[in-house]
């Protein structure tokens, strides 16, 4: 089965999205619905001493103001600017906003630590890692490269805001909300309201971009549900972006001190990697995770990682697309470029020469993978051979400086236990009850393609039910494991259904597609339910899947092997001679994601990942004024993300060779992977163009003036 190549089908929900028929959480309008608005704390740290709610309740249309007296989560103790202190519920959104703005709490401020530097900021050590003999390798090194690299605080900024609609019917709670982990939201709400979980339904059929921001359960959801129960009416809250900057998670700023050793024959022998990041105490995004992917990228046997956190008085940072490997690859892949110059080697060749076979963390083999094919194919498409290595050696006739850069990225190919129910009906319809969340990545299209390429059914009447806890357990769609987990179980369901059909039809099946055959056999439908485990899992994983999506995950180190997805990025950078405007006329991006299930949406991911990578390298930074600890550029005008006019030609390619060990379909994830490698490739190209090594993102015009 894994040997089969998938042909391309269009994105199955494209038409609905273009026509506006795809319904997101904030689109839901229910009869009698009320509107809510959060009230953000206007201090960074301290205590709210007084909150007189009458200025809000006097406003026509305001029905109720929830405070710490109603909900303990709205505590008067303030830990970060923007922390919700109240929720105003009103008949209209206008009244809710006016009510929220009418409140004027009395605060007692205390001093705070807004950034990693400054008074009170101290480093708290985190768990490190040591493999081989790093000290000896550095002692014996012929060449050592050392540098400090920094990536900034960045926010996810999906277009869809946090939009929640909650409705109670007796003891039954239904929530409509874009999220990446409906099952976790369901458990959190069941616990918060002391309900049996089957009384809670979360509906998240479409998510307008997740990127990690929508993976943890949110306080907002519980507050809206509470308000709806209290009012006995549905309540909607769509939180404005300026507030979201302050209450959602974000990518923490991190500083990486990296040392790289090579021996006399030019082989890389050791990496020493130290990282410190901004965090809160016991924050969910751990500084001990930065080394875990980069230690597996090349065959470098000696690796030492040290890590630390500096606790700041802001909200909690969490996973953001690309997660730990994004900053870590920026550091490592920039340092390798420096090393290539120091050794007089070609940056592509030095990478090809260090192809990894072993996972030095889990001390086991890596499953078959194709980073070197990505590099070779990328170099061919990009015409890497035109590059003259000397910095500043390539110019256009008008003096424009040209730089060509390369870098790689990798991400752990995790998976999840999963379950699928597939029903083909005589009336021409097919229904899949599956698991996962459609965030734009194309999981529905991948599921559809898995079925239509294996079963002779009517593809236009294929219904795919996901992102809804009432249809079946929904796995956490995080860490690029959604498609990689759901495709194998869907393929297995298709196979099981075909087997059942053959059994039913016997030796001489009637003519026509499966629907017609069923009709001739006088059967209204046939249905199969199958489950699939990730390598090394036992039946308890399915139980975990049925109860809480995230507990069912496994990998990237499975018993006996480790599986990673890989990408190689090639970029051409032009820097205008006088104003030094930085442009990217061409990028080539080649990935090894195992078997490609949905070529159209996979390429879409590749384009989007490249644009995101460009944006992280040259555009995005959350600006924090340390005097206030707030995010100053808290809208899409001032938080500068790449736009269409920034992007030149992008050529993407997929190796499309299955990983035979990771799952029965040979599929690995790509959602995180595709944005990796671009930032160091751009920094390396800028060095090639100018001779200036820039170790801090984002790179801006003033850095190359």
């Amino acid at each position, binding site marked *: 089965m894994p040997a089969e190549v998938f042909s391309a089908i269009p994105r199955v929900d494209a038409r609905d999205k273009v026509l506006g028929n795809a319904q997101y959480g904030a689109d839901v309008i229910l009869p009698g619905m009320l509107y809510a608005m959060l009230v953000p704390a206007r201090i960074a740290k301290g205590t709210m001493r007084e909150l007189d709610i009458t200025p809000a309740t006097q406003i026509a*249309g305001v029905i109720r103001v929830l405070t710490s007296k109603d909900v303990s989560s709205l505590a008067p103790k303030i830990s970060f600017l923007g922390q919700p202190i109240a929720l105003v519920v009103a008949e209209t959104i206008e009244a809710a906003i006016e009510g929220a703005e009418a409140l004027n709490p009395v605060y007692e401020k205390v001093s705070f630590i807004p950034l990693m530097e400054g008074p009170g900021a101290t480093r708290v050590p985190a768990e490190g890692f040591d493999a081989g003999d790093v000290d000896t390798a550095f002692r014996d090194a012929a060449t050592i490269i050392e540098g400090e690299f920094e990536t900034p605080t960045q926010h996810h900024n999906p277009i869809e805001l946090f939009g929640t609609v909650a409705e109670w019917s007796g003891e039954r709670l239904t929530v409509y909300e874009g999220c990446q982990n409906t099952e976790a939201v369901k458990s959190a709400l069941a616990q918060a309201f002391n309900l049996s979980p089957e009384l809670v339904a979360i509906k998240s059929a479409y998510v307008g971009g997740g990127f990690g921001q929508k993976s943890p359960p949110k306080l907002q959801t519980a507050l809206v549900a509470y308000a709806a129960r209290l009012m006995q009416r549905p309540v909607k809250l769509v939180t404005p972006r300026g507030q979201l900057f302050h209450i959602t998670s974000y990518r923490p700023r991190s500083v990486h001190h990296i040392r790289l050793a090579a021996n006399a024959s030019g082989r890389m022998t050791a990496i020493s990697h130290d990282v410190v990041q901004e965090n809160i105490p016991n924050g969910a995004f751990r500084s001990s995770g930065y080394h875990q992917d980069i230690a597996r990228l090349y065959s470098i046997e000696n690796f030492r990682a040290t890590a630390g956190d500096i606790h700041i008085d802001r909200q909690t940072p969490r996973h953001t697309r690309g997660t730990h490997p994004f900053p870590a690859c920026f550091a490592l892949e920039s340092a390798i470029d420096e090393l290539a110059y120091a050794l007089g080697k070609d940056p592509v060749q030095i990478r090809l020469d260090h192809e990894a076979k072993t996972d030095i963390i889990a001390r086991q083999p890596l499953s078959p993978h194709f980073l070197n094919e990505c590099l070779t194919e990328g170099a061919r498409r990009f015409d890497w051979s035109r590059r003259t290595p000397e910095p500043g050696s390539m110019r256009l006739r008008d003096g424009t400086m040209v730089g060509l850069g390369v870098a790689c990225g990798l991400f752990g190919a995790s998976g999840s236990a999963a379950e699928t129910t597939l029903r083909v009906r005589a009336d021409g319809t097919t229904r899949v009850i599956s698991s996962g969340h459609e965030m734009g990545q194309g999981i529905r299209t991948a599921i559809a393609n898995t079925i239509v390429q294996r079963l002779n059914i009517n593809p236009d009447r294929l219904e795919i039910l996901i992102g809804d806890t009432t249809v079946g357990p929904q796995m956490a769609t995080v860490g690029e494991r959604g498609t990689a987990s759901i495709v194998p179980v869907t393929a297995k369901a298709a196979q099981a259904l075909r087997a059942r059909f053959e059994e039913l039809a016997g030796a001489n099946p009637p003519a026509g597609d499966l629907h017609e055959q069923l009709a001739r056999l006088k059967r209204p439908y046939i249905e199969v339910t199958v489950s699939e485990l990730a390598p090394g899992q036992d039946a308890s994983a399915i139980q975990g899947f049925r109860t809480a999506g995230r507990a069912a995950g496994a990998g990237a180190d499975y018993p006996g092997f480790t599986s990673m997805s890989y990408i190689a990025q090639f970029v051409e950078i032009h820097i205008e001679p*006088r104003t030094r405007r930085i442009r990217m006329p061409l990028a080539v991006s080649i990935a090894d994601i195992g078997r490609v299930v949905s070529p159209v949406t996979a390429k879409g991911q590749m384009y989007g990942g490249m644009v995101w990578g460009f944006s992280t390298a040259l555009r995005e930074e959350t600006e924090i004024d340390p005097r206030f600890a707030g995010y100053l550029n808290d809208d899409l005008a001032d938080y500068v993300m790449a736009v269409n006019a920034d992007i030149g030609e992008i050529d993407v390619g997929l190796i499309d060779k299955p990983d035979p060990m990771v799952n029965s379909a040979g599929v690995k994830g790509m959602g995180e992977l595709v944005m990796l490698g671009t930032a160091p490739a751009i920094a390396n190209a800028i060095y090639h163009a100018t001779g200036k090594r820039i170790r801090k993102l984002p790179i801006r015009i003033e850095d190359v003036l």
Partner: protein
Amino acid sequence: MRPISYTRAGTLEAAVKAFTAAGADARYLAGGTTLYDLMKLGVERPAHLIDLTGIAGLNIIETDGDVLRFGALALMGDVAYTPAVHEGYPVLSESLLKAASQQLRNMATVGGNLLQRTRCMYFRNGAGSTSTVGVYPCNRRQPGSGCAAIGGLDRGHAVLGASDACTAVSPGDWPVALMAMDATIELFGPGGARSIPIAEFYRLPSDTPHLQFNVDPAELITAITVPKTPGRASTYHKIRDRESFAFALASAAVAVEMDGATVRTARIALGGVATVPWRAQPAEDMVRGKTLTPELALEAGRAAFRGARPGQHNAFKMDLGARVIADALMIAAERRS
């Protein structure tokens, strides 16, 4: 609910009358692209809106007479694509087309554009609305409250024309082009009609940064006129943090008249670096009567920033701005014919 009255005026006289009757918290409404934005941010809280878009004839674009005349309600997009402007005056057309997005240019008016407020984030994001969270002092928004930008994140702020009370950048592109082209602003108010040169339209922040325009609050812009010149040798060169939908880090509006390789006259104005649209006289003086070379162009650019006063994070604008002038001079000169 906070009530807002809405009046749709049919004539200039009716608009001014409605405004005068309504008092201080009245605002004229044209394209609405700035006003609604600032209302959501809580920076503007008007009680009375007087809609001007029903006034007949206020959107007329005339290019046949002695001057180019743009009615205040003419849309940015329409002016930019008017053939006489697009072909004959690249500096004007480019200043409009490099601003905002097509959607905004189809709503925003060329008169309203002159009154756009600063994009200083402390000004915009510190007014305590639920759209945002920070609470920042701002002398421009709240006189006497202080300036958070001074000593703060001032990468985007002005290096020219700033005061101890305010360093906010004048955000526009179109006003910069008009400044270079010596435009005249026609006004109508309680005292009747008058016109002023654009150079007198904007006020330096000084110690009253909340007063940005030398215009009575009840006065309306009715038209903008631009003297006809051989305007083809001109450009609006804009460098920004991304290639569309962004305000200038530094921009230059340049129009030259050449005698062969020699500059007869140069008009140069700067955007993105100053508290008002900034005429760069020293740069003009430096190139006048001389053979234009890239070196001279850069020298002229540097001259424009003599006396500039950078903050903590925006010193690069002096260098960048000089380079933008230099490139703009060379682009404009290449277009002569």
